[in-house]
């Protein structure tokens, strides 16, 4: 027998608040979308509010035929895939030994991992390190340094600790070695936390631009966010602070890029939006499971 719950004033308030939060969350994205397909002059005058005015798709066709943008897209996908796979690999392989009570110096190793989470060397020491390793101005500057994330290792370790020890013991009795236990028992059971680590890495790498700004002066290997940043930065120049010849060049660039930036934002956001639903099943379950316990 189902018991019908009464719909009271509190529920109405909660629902209204949730609708408001949804609107606040979704409207900016919708706003950028309708600006991107509105007439450029109307868009520049910011007269678009709830629906597009004067349908205009030329900025999308300009982007679609822009070779530089597609190259940036390709490199971004490469960085995302490489980073995600390597982060998952390092997280799993570093977290597993830390779950073993027999590991010598385990406490010391955990403390050693925790310290860099609070202190960093800064930009110039990192730059020196990247340069000396020969990674400067190469694609690997965006992959190798970031494929090892202490926070994700801790997260994964905490999840592994939650898996019953008896599973490991019975597998050992059956003759399984550590690699077999890790690959056949721990990893299949860890899909939620791996999904969390995966989606965090994908979104983080997709959105990153600062590392490329510092370590990759060559525009041909830069990710998509750098391309977008370039378009946006060109819009913010104060023309009266330039000489007359420079002001004219920048003014022309500003005018032609004004509409483009909205389309670019949509282009760069869509892949991440499409990726989320595939991970959602694990993400909802896993995001709290990996939290630190005691």
């Amino acid at each position: 027998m189902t018991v019908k719950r009464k719909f009271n004033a509190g529920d109405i308030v909660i629902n209204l608040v949730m609708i408001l939060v949804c609107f606040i969350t979704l409207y900016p994205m919708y706003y950028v979308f309708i600006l991107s397909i509105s007439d450029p002059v109307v868009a520049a005058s910011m007269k678009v509010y709830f629906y597009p005015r004067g349908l205009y798709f030329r900025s999308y066709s300009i982007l679609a035929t822009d070779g530089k943008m597609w190259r940036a897209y390709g490199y971004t996908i490469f960085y995302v895939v490489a980073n995600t796979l390597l982060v998952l690999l390092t997280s799993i392989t570093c977290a597993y030994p830390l779950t073993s009570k027999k590991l010598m110096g385990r406490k010391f190793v955990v403390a050693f991992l925790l310290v860099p989470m609070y202190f960093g060397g800064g930009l110039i020491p990192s730059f020196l390190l990247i340069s000396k390793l020969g990674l400067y101005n190469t694609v690997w500057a965006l992959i190798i340094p970031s494929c090892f994330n202490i926070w994700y290792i801790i997260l994964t370790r905490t999840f592994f600790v939650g898996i019953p020890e008896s599973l490991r013991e019975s597998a050992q009795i059956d003759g399984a070695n550590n690699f077999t236990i890790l690959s056949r028992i721990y990893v299949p059971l860890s899909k939620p936390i791996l999904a969390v680590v995966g989606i965090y890495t994908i979104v983080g790498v997709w959105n990153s631009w600062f590392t490329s700004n510092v370590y990759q002066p060559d525009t041909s290997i830069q990710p998509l966010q750098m391309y977008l940043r370039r378009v946006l930065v060109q819009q913010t120049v104060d023309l009266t602070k330039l000489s007359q010849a420079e002001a004219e060049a920048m003014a022309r660039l500003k005018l032609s890029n004004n509409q483009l930036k909205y389309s670019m934002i949509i282009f760069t956001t869509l892949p991440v939006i499409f990726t989320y639903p595939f991970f959602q099943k694990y993400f909802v379950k896993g995001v709290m499971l990996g939290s630190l316990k005691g």
Partner: protein
Amino acid sequence: MEKKLWRYLSVTLAVLLMMGVLSACATSPQTTGSSNKNKSKGSNQAADKAGSKTIHIMGPETGNPHIHFKDREKYSSWKEFQKLFKEKGLNPKFEVVANDQYQTTLQTRMASATDMPDFLNVTGLGDDTILNFVDKGTILPVNQIIDEHSDGTAKQFFAEGGKGARSNALNAAENGNVYWISQIQATTYDGKPGSTNQVISVRKDWLDKLNLEVPKTADDFYHMLKAFREKDANGNGQQDEVLAFNPAAWNNGIAQWFGLVNEISCFVIEDGKAVSPWYQPGIKDYFKYLNKLAKEGLMDTSTIGGGDPLDQVIAENKAGAIFDYCMQTWQEPGTGDPDAAYLPIGPLKATDAAEPILAIEPPYLSYNRWAFTKECKDLDVAGTLLDILCSDKYMELTQWGIEGETYEVKDGEKKLLPIALNASWEQAAKEGKEIGDLIWANGSIFPKRRFVPMENEISIVPEYKAEFQRNIIDYHPTTPLGKENYFPVPTQEQVQRRLELNTDLGTQSSQLATQLILGQISMDDWDSHIQSLKDLGLDEILKIDQTLLDRYKKNVKD
């Protein structure tokens, strides 16, 4: 199936890791990708020839939408320029960084002293940073390179009486050494130094439409703005026509009508005394005037601070008046109105307390910086490069290009052809015909040497703008756009003190000005407002600037 998936995944991961390791091992720190990427295709051939010396040069890509340094091989001016390198046995290796990224690249490379080029554009470094590098020996003294390694060309250029003498004097540090060279833009009109300027421009088409006279005083201007609004000049059925400018900045056109200089500390060129607008006689009338405009809605207060709101007002075709270069032609397309025409006016008489002044782009501009780093071990190469950059041929290629392609000689005078003028960048890029200024100079890889008569620029703008420029050319008094063109290199103490004072002082000044314009604070408390600026070091800033100005007058002969 699952086993195969694991296998493929493992192989992919192993390959990725191996590629990373091999990549790191294959390149040594001395030859990182930065030196190898973006090599000049032409100079690769030169590198193979015996006897040519290599020099690593770094700079930002040009900011031009159509003309790019990376496409230089298609321009005939560049091919001629390359011959200068070949004649001198120099093999330049270029590293071109995107314009928006250059400052980050410059700062990280210089701060870490890693993989520094031999010669580079150091404009993005502040005074304090660059003087620190000078102290550490990271940047080499250019005057010593010229004295000991030039064949005489650079020496003559920078010597007294030479075209670069003034720039050299401005770049001299207190110890007498010069640590960088600058680009030079000297404008003449009718054979004499001539300047362009920044003024208020009004909608000429609206004046014609409403049968209004061009304003001659600040009062006329006020009435003109009212008429634009009341008679719906933009024809959209709303009274939304406004003055679009940034009143939070002193350099806004209207402040100059009240005799105010255009920075918190600046000077009237004819006067030679550092002064602040806060101390000038026209200041109170200025705030009263702007307060009146703000109260009556004739000024869009959302544009205080400039930026996007300002662009938006123009894009909405509401701007009855704007502030920009008098010969600008880039604001009209932004209004979306095909009839839009901005007529420059002023400076208008606004108060009996002071004469209106004009903000001018100094006729002799020496700005931006290029320097040699300690990575440049062979100073003969540095001297050779300087000789090239100071040669007549380089000047000709930079400012005129190739005769018959980008300029012609008529009645003994050089004149730029239409393809080399600002309106034709796209066509110039297609045909490969452009002056060097746009390909490799103008704040990019090399400094420009531009000694061009203003008549060339005047000839391509609408006649009403050209007429204004011609008529205003001899106007006095004037204040400079960019006081640094009159300031030699400050000492480190002066740089440090300015850094300490400028931020808070600038914020307080902008805030006070905004509040007075909007009527949020009263002018009855004037003394306490001034005292708050004095407490933040206004007088000290003026003293520092006066010292620099006095040094300039002593070292630079006009």
